């Protein structure tokens, strides 16, 4: 018995690789964990798409007729807003998933393993990028069905999708920070959502900011959601605007610089109790 046990132990030597290698490899192992679950819980992806589909239908057919936009059709204007809102709302799932792992004790197990600590957070944000890509593509198709006709080059469209994914990545870290700061999954869910409503509606997502009162307009025109949506809109409608693109990239980079360390800090505080 004893000898077979030792034999087993010798076979189980961990591979020696530099720490940086494991930072990435461990994150990918965890990203894969989340990705293989997507087809197993189809309702999650379905609900993640139903809400933006309803927004498309609501604004395209109910409110759209009353909203004047210049230079293009309303549905062409609308879709950039829908994409932006979808990926930003989608980022809350990062926080909810984390809150679940904490509650179920999975995070404790991960921490008792000799793996890269950051992987618990990065693994999830990486898999959420993949998930968001799927949702964007679905919304693209829905958009085309209701009359969305993007203009310009495929390259510009890919750049738009890239910017959207970068934005969702940045917002995922905010969602993670929030989820790690509250006690329960339910709180992570509502606290993660609530502040996104003013941010997405007081933006250029559904209506031009020029229609807003001055005080609101001042806010709406300078907040990141508007900048991202304007940049995406420009790229999809063959009117790329370098200034909004750079400003939105800067916003997202700034959010990452603040929220990655903040999330890691809250994470290490949260788990030390």
């Amino acid at each position: 018995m004893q000898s077979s046990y030792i034999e087993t132990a010798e076979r189980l030597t961990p591979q020696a690789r530099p720490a940086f290698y494991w930072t990435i490899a461990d994150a990918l192992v965890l990203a894969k964990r989340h990705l293989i679950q997507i087809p197993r819980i189809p309702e999650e992806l379905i609900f993640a798409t139903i809400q933006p589909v309803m927004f498309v239908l609501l604004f395209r057919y109910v409110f759209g007729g009353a909203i004047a936009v210049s230079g293009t059709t309303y549905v062409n204007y609308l879709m950039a807003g829908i994409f932006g809102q979808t990926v930003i709302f989608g980022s809350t799932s990062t926080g909810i998933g984390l809150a679940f792992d904490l509650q179920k004790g999975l995070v404790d197990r991960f921490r008792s393993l000799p793996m890269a600590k950051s992987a618990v957070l990065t693994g999830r944000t990486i898999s959420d990028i993949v998930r968001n890509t799927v949702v964007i593509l679905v919304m693209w198709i829905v958009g085309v069905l209701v009359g969305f006709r993007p203009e310009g080059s495929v390259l510009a469209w890919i750049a738009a999708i890239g910017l959207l994914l970068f934005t969702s990545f940045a917002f995922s870290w905010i969602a993670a920070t929030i989820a790690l700061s509250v006690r329960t999954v339910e709180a992570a869910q509502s606290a993660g959502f609530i502040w996104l409503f003013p941010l997405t509606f007081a933006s250029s997502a559904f209506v031009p900011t020029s229609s807003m009162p001055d005080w609101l307009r001042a806010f709406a025109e300078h907040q990141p959601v508007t900048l991202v949506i304007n940049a995406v809109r420009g790229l999809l409608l063959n009117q790329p605007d370098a200034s909004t693109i750079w400003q939105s990239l800067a916003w997202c980079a700034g959010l990452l610089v603040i929220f990655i360390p903040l999330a890691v800090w809250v994470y290490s505080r949260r788990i030390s109790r």
Partner: protein
Amino acid sequence: MSNKPAILAEGLHKHFGKTHALAGLDLVAEEGTVLGVLGPNGAGKTTAVRILTTLLKPDAGYAEVAGLDVVKQADLLRARIGLAGQYAAVDDNLTGYENLKMFGQLYHLSSARARQRANELLERFDLAEAGRRVVKTYSGGMRRRLDLAASLIMAPPVLFLDEPTTGLDPRGRLAMWDVISSLVSDGTTVLLTTQYLEEADQLAHQIAVVDRGRVIANGTADELKTQVGGERLELTIVPGGDLNAALQAVQVYSSGEIQISAEHRHLSVPVTQGAQHLAAIVRDLDAAHVRLDDLALRRPTLDDVFLTLTGHAATDEEASPEEVTISKSLVRSA
């Protein structure tokens, strides 16, 4: 084998706000043994496990596991320990196999080795078939076995089991006990926390009774029981029998005050080395024509130990009332 204990904790302190979760906890477990850490909810068992498994840093004190400092050598230590039970977990939406493979990779085994190890462990824990199903469909016992399997991926020399059978049905509990025993016979050192006194009695070589963040008693189950008081001979005579005759017959064997309950026709006699005298006692009772309904030599249970040491019961109403009813009904049917 080796003279260094596999688990050593000295004077561990941990505060959470105003709560003093650990107030100078000392533990020792020799290599290849099971240390049972016994105590009620909130006694500090889980905090101790979390410190020894590197999940928490102690405020003060020193601890080493498998010869490694739990604070300074935490990274090295994580590859040499396993943690399962209350606070470890598996992913419900993955299959058993996927869970084990993932944890193997996170232990930094190559994916070929991780796959091989996953299959080995599924086989060993009787989950080979269930391994292809998502964990959501598992029974409580299967889930715990998978959880335990995950903690054994690296065949760790030291294993921490935090209330491994809490919430399991009796069959699941027995199966878990078997698994733990076989691990120990393979040479693993186990630290086991439990609220079930019976569990510590069954599995542990040494027991540390913890209350309010410190160890209040230490020893083997037998030593603890002796510490609380020796055995008692409990006898009940038939209705209408002569209780005085019985009393006279057993008096010479008594080592203290005999409790008499005429109403229940019952005598409770403190004895020393009762087993050796049991045959003689029965002969004497027979000679005195005392007819018995029931005769038992009872050693104190760990429940008695806990009650004596702390002045309060280990748990509010653990299994014991149930056991009492069972033994009564057995007596009745016999």
